[in-house]
């Protein structure tokens, strides 16, 4: 059963057709559910769901490439992306820096994900010129964490 309702899929397809300009590679970090229950180990049940959601998005356009990594089977890929917990989604497009979603992108985060896919594809940056030039001058690492909750 599809995760995204048909009407929303159609809307997203239209957004992608209209706004995507270049290819976006989406890495999804997931984990195979373990058969063994280990007390205290955090099991995120939404890994496979996030993978399915991203794959459904990729079906709506030829410009999205999805790579799924199992965090336990591919620790190097996870380390390279700086990902230690699942699910995690990393967008690779025209963005110079790193754009990641940690946890399932549901509710409000889902529309943020769509908007971010479009932005990294189209290279659109809705910032004032002065802000952009101030940002470009930064040479230290900047880690911005935005916490939200699914609505």
């Amino acid at each position, binding site marked *: 059963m599809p995760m995204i309702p048909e009407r929303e899929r159609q809307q997203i397809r239209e957004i992608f057709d209209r706004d995507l300009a270049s290819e976006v590679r989406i890495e999804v970090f997931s984990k195979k559910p373990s058969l063994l229950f280990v007390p205290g180990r955090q099991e*995120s049940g*939404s890994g496979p769901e996030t993978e399915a959601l991203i794959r459904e998005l990729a079906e709506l356009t030829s410009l999205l490439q999805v790579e799924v990594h199992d965090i336990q089977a591919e620790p190097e890929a996870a380390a390279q992306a*700086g990902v230690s*917990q699942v699910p995690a989604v990393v967008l690779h497009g*025209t*963005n*110079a*820096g*790193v*754009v*990641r*979603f*940690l*946890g*399932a*992108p*549901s509710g409000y*985060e889902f529309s*943020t*994900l769509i908007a*971010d896919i479009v*932005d*990294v594809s189209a*290279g659109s*940056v809705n*910032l*004032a010129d002065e*802000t*952009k030039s*101030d*940002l*470009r001058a*930064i*040479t*230290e*690492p*900047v*880690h*911005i*964490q*935005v*916490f*939200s*909750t*699914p609505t």
Partner: protein
Amino acid sequence: MAMVNEHITADAIDASEFPELSSKYQVMSVPKIVINDRVEFTGAQPEAAFLEAIQQAIAPKED
């Protein structure tokens, strides 16, 4: 902002799935933004305020 500079990493985090992070940063209302573990604010901010927060977060520490 991550679009523009390779040194910037932007994470959108689901607070309910990462309770340890949420309690580390005492996330009580959202959106809560934390920059370099040094500067925090809650709620959407105008662009200039956000940029200033970033600049504060990377400024050399004063003793």
